[in-house]
């Protein structure tokens, strides 16, 4: 139960508190430093997109926030409260399982490979956690799930198992499943990377709808530059476990200041 090295507040008490704050977050796999002292604030309702070459730590950012893996140093705060740590006897100690479970309730995550539960129908996927974790009655959970499946355009597929759905449909069910927990923050981890080109649009359309109609805070890792540019409030370019450059999409895509950003963007845009 190692406390983070250095001085970290037990909770953020500034006048303005970001929805998510990464403070000096480091993650290593053995000798490999995947995230190097990352500082990043995400504001409530903001859509932040993370781009960068593979191995730059993009996905790790999301996985650390969802606490799928533990960070090695630093602290992540969620609405001003520590997420990776908890307060005990006036100091920060590593969060235990129970604390993490509670904190994760605020976050929803969609994965590259959907990770739907294959033995459950689309509807069952969406009601499982609301019933088991949030304690909703089955009627309430079904109603909520049907609304969400309707929102992603798959109400008529409610009773299908994932094996009967296309990739784009699976990802839309996965989005509905996450939203059924009513998270404050949504994480999209390369949600279109495993999809055939012709169905990418149906998933991005759902995400666009979320940006337009809901005040969700969102963090998205993507390789789709056009989509990132269109819907992000801010784009972060990751390189070597650090944010090399960040800014409004127009600025970052049209006038990147750093050489690595320019190289990456020209390489990516050439390929498409």
């Amino acid at each position, binding site marked *: 139960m190692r406390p983070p090295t250095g001085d970290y507040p037990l909770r953020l008490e500034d006048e303005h508190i970001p929805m998510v704050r990464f403070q000096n977050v480091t993650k290593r796999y053995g000798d490999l430093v995947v995230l190097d002292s990352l500082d990043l604030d995400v504001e409530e309702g903001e859509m932040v997109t993370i781009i960068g070459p593979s191995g730059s730590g993009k996905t790790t950012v999301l996985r650390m926030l969802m606490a799928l893996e533990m960070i090695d140093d630093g602290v992540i705060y969620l609405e001003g409260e520590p997420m990776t740590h908890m307060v005990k006897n006036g100091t920060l100690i590593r969060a235990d399982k129970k604390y993490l479970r509670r904190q994760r309730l605020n976050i929803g995550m969609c994965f590259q490979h959907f990770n739907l539960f294959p033995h459950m129908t689309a509807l069952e996927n969406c009601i499982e956690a609301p019933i088991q974790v949030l304690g909703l009655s089955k009627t309430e959970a079904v109603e909520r799930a049907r609304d969400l499946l309707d929102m992603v355009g798959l109400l008529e597929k409610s009773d299908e*198992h994932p094996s009967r759905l296309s990739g784009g449909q699976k990802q839309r069910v996965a989005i509905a499943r996450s939203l059924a927990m009513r998270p404050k923050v949504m994480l999209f981890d390369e949600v279109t990377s495993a999809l055939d080109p012709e169905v990418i649009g149906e998933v991005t359309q759902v995400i666009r709808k979320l940006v337009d109609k809901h005040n969700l805070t969102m963090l998205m890792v993507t390789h789709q530059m056009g989509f990132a540019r269109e819907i992000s409030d801010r784009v972060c370019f990751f390189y070597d476990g650090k944010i090399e450059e960040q800014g409004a999409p127009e600025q970052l895509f049209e006038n990147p200041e750093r050489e690595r950003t320019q190289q990456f963007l020209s390489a990516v845009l050439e390929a498409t």
Partner: protein
Amino acid sequence: MFDWRWEFVGDILPRLLKATGNTLLAALLGYGIAVVLGLILALAQRTHYPLLNRTVREFVEFIRSTPLVLQIFFVFYVGPQFGIMLSPWTAGMIAIGLHYASYLSEVYRAGIDSVPMGQWEAATSLSLSAARTYSRIIIPQAIPTAFAGMGNYLVGIFKDTPMLSVIGVAELMHTANAIGSEHYRFLEPYTLVGLIFLAISLPTAGALRKAEGKIRENMGLR
């Protein structure tokens, strides 16, 4: 010369069929114990308590590396030296149940390991508790994979029940031996025992294979 007596077959068949009931009972009881205990052994090896983990793993290895017949003798004949007096049935069920639980725990382990990492991560991201994650997400998906192995061991335990005859459980083999020594004829009783085993094993194995496909289908896994 080959001397097969049909009237003798007619005489002893009812007795053998009656003993078949005991054989089936022993197989099913033992299997029932093994199915439940095996799951406990498998899950115990996945906990975060190193001592429990290690102990259970060594125990499973120990059981798998020693002969079943020795284990049966041990429970039945060594138990009383420690004040544990067990009937042949109880001792037999403990020994064979434990033995197959060890094998089944490995089958479960392989089944659980076959569930992709992403399923655990999805369950974690939905804040499902460890118990719910196992009971609702992981184990249901591990079952189709484990089912083939579980079926093999069901047939296996059935074929191993004759070992219980060594401590006097009145199953098929025990009865065949008794008939043989009463009449000094072994050809017919042993042949019949073999045929009875075949008549049960073969259709069971076939039915299990069919059921495996059905299970996958019903779970929407294909």
